[in-house]
C-alpha cells in the first residue's frame, strides 16, 4: 500500500497528490510515469510523475478526472492509500542544451510537461512555456511554470485569462516574431499535439510529444500501448512515451484510444450511480 501524504485540488476536477514511494522518488527522471492501481478491483492506469522529493520519499502526480478510475482517485484524501504504484516507467526525456526550448502544455498536459520543462531549464536552455486551458479557472501550475521559464505564457480558449486563443496560435506568433527556436515539447490532447507538429514541421523545428496510448502493464509485455512512429511499431511504455512529433501517426493513436469507449462509459456511469448511493446514505 502506498500512503497519500497530501491531496489538493488545483482546479476543478484536477487534483495533485503527494504519495509515499521512496524507491521511485529516488530514481525517477523527467518524462517518466507510474502505473497505479487504486484497489483490489482497480485497473492499472498510467500517470506522469510531476515531481518528487527523494528526501521525503514522495512523488507527486496530478490527475484529471475523466473516467471511473481517475474520478475515483480524485475522491482520495491525505491519509488514504493506493494499492499499487509502479515505476518509474518509460524512457526519460532526452534533455540537452538545445538553445531555446518551448514547452507547450494543454490542459492536464501542463502537469506532464512540467518536469521536462524544469529539466530543460536546468540544462541551460532558454525556456519558453505556453500553457493552454479552456478557461481561467482551469489554469494549473502557473507559478511552478513561471519559476522554470524565461518567458511564460498562458492561453485560454475563451480569452478569460492570458492570451485569447489556442497554444498553437501563440506558438505561431513566437515563430513569426523571428525568434530562433531550437526545440519544442508539446503535451496535451491528441488534436493539440498534432496541431503543434503541423505548425513546426515546415520550419524543421525538432518537436517532441508525449503520447498517451492505453496501457496495462507499462513494462512492455502486452503491446496494448503500441503506436506507429515513422511507419514502425513502437511500444509507448518502453520506447516512449516521448516521440518525434513529425513521425507520429496521430490518427492511429486517436483511433486506437477509442477501443473501450463503450466500456469506459459504462464504468463511469456505474461509478456515478454508486457515488449517488453513498451520498444518499
Amino acid at each position, binding site marked *: 500500500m502506498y500512503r497519500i501524504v497530501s491531496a489538493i485540488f488545483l482546479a476543478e476536477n484536477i487534483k495533485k497528490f503527494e504519495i509515499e514511494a521512496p*524507491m*521511485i522518488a529516488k*530514481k525517477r527522471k523527467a518524462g517518466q510515469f507510474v502505473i497505479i*492501481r487504486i484497489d483490489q*478491483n*482497480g*485497473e*492499472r492506469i498510467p500517470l506522469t510523475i510531476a515531481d518528487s522529493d527523494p528526501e521525503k520519499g514522495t512523488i507527486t502526480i496530478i490527475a484529471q478526472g475523466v473516467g*471511473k*478510475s481517475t474520478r475515483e482517485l480524485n475522491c482520495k484524501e491525505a491519509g488514504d492509500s493506493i*494499492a*499499487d*504504484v*509502479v*515505476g*518509474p*516507467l518509460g524512457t526519460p526525456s532526452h534533455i540537452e542544451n538545445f538553445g531555446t526550448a518551448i514547452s507547450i502544455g494543454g490542459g492536464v498536459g501542463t502537469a506532464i510537461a512540467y518536469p521536462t520543462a524544469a529539466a530543460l531549464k536546468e540544462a541551460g536552455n532558454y525556456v519558453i512555456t505556453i500553457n493552454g486551458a479552456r478557461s481561467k479557472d482551469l489554469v494549473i501550475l502557473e507559478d511552478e511554470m513561471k519559476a522554470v521559464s524565461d518567458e511564460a505564457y498562458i492561453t485560454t480558449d475563451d480569452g478569460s485569462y492570458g492570451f485569447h486563443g489556442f497554444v498553437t496560435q501563440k506558438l505561431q506568433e513566437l515563430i513569426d516574431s523571428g525568434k530562433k527556436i531550437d526545440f519544442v515539447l508539446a503535451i496535451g490532447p491528441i488534436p493539440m499535439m498534432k496541431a503543434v507538429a503541423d505548425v513546426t514541421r515546415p520550419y524543421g523545428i525538432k518537436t517532441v510529444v508525449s503520447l498517451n496510448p492505453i496501457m*496495462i*502493464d507499462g*513494462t*512492455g*509485455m*502486452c*503491446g*496494448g500501448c*503500441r503506436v*506507429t512512429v515513422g511507419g514502425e*511499431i513502437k511500444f509507448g511504455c*518502453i520506447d516512449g512515451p516521448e516521440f518525434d512529433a513529425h513521425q507520429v*501517426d496521430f*490518427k*492511429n493513436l486517436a*483511433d*486506437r484510444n*477509442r*477501443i*473501450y469507449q*463503450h*466500456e*469506459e462509459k*459504462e*464504468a463511469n456511469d*456505474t461509478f456515478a450511480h454508486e457515488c449517488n448511493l453513498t451520498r444518499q446514505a
Partner: protein
Amino acid sequence: MAIPRQKMPAQDPVERVGNFKEVNLGLTPEQAQQEALRCIQCKDPVCIAGCPVNIKIDQFIKLIAEGDFMGAVRKIKEDNVLPSICGRVCPQEDQCEKVCVIGKKHEPVAIGNLERFVGDYERTSGQKIDPKIAPPTGKKVAVVGSGPAGLSCANDLAQYGHKVVVFEALHELGGVLMYGIPEFRLPKEIVREELDGLRRMGIEFRTDVVVGRTITIDELMEEEGFDAVFIGVGAGLPWFMGIPGENLVGVLAANEFLTRVNLMKAYDFLKSSDTPVFDCKGKNVAVFGGGNTAMDAVRTAKRLGAEHAYIVYRRSEKEMPAREEEIHNAKEEGIEFLLLTTPLEFVGDEKAWLTGAKCQKMELGEPDDSGRRRPVPVEGSEYILPIDMAIISIGNGPNPLIHQTTPDIEVSKRETIVVDVNTMQTSKENVYAGGDIVTGGATVILAMGAGRKAAAAINEKLGGTAKNFNEW
C-alpha cells in the same frame, strides 16, 4: 494390464463455455489409488529422467497406492514445491509419461494427474508440509521475476539457508501462471495457495518493482547488499506479424487479451473488476497461432461469448505446438480450426475498426530446419474471413529492459541471456539467469528446472553447504 487408466472427471463442454471455472475436476482418492496401482514400480524408473526436476515418481506413486497421501506430498515436495500447478500444466505426454514403460503397450501411468491429486490433497487437507530450512548463512540473494523459474530458485535458496527477496514487476506473483494461463486451466487461488507455502519459508516478496527501472541489478548488489542475483524475467514481449492493418482497432496481442482477462479479471468487468476487455458477445474472433497461448486465448474468447472463435494456423494440426489435451478441450468447446491458413493483411472500416482478415490457404512442402514441413502458399486461394477481433499469438521475445540497463550481461542475437549451461551463470559475476529469458518461450517445468540448477550453483558459489532435501 487389468486396470484401465483412470479418466479424470471434467465439466461438461456445453456448460463450461459459459463459465471460467476449472475444466478438469481432479481424481477422487479412490481413482488416485487405482491409478497408482497401475505403476509397476520399475527397478530403473525411466519416468524420473523424463521429468526436468527429477521427481521421485515411482516413490510418490507407491505412497499413493498405499494410501499414505501425506507421505506422497512430502516425497514430491523434495523436488517440486508447486505440484498442484505442475500437475495441471506440464506437458507430461512429452516428458515423464512419454517414457513410462506401461505406455509401450497400454496407456502410460497418469503421472501428471497423480501429481495434481497429491498437490490438491495437501491444499485441501488442512495439513501443511513445509520443507526443512538450513540454518541461516547470512547471505542474501535477489530473485528477479516471480514466474516458475524465480519461484523454484527462491525455494531452493531458502532451503539452503540464504535470505531470499523476490522482486516482481506486476502487482501479483506467479508470472505466466497468473497473467497468462487462464483460470479455467489453473485457478488463480491455487497459485496463491502454493505461493503461501513459499512465504512460510521466510521468502520475502516485493511486488511493483521493475528491475531495470525501479532499481538496477548493479544497485541490488552494490547498494542493497545482495550477494547474488537470479534473473527469471521470462520472455514476455509479444511479437507482431508486421502485416498491413495490424494497428486497426480490434487487433491485439494474446498477452494483452489474457492479461486483461486473467490478471485483471476483466471477465467480471463492472462487478469485481474495473478493467475492460473487448466485448466478444456474438462477435467473430480469430486467434492467429497454434501454441498453448493461442488455445488459451481462443477458449477465453469463446467464454466471453464469441459466436465464432477460430484458430487460424499456417500448418496442420499435427504440427501444432499446443498440448494435445488442450486442442481436444478446445474442439469440445466448439472452437473452429482453420488450418493451413495464413493472414496476409487485416482490413477495417472507415473508423479504423477491424472487419476482416485477408487469408491465404497453404499446403505443406519440404521439412524446414525445425523438421516440420514448411507451409507454402496456394496461389489464388485468398479470401476474406470476417472477424471483429484478431488476437495475435505467434510468440514472445525477451523484454529488453534488463539488457538495456545492465549492458555487461551478454545476450544472444535473439536478446535471450547467455548462460553457462551447467551453472546458469551469466557473463556477469554472481548474476545467474534461467527460464524463458534464457530459452525463449518454453515450459513451466523447464523454467523450474533451470531455477533449481541456478540455486545449486549460487549456493556453491556462496559457500553454502549441500542440503539434504530428504531430512524433513
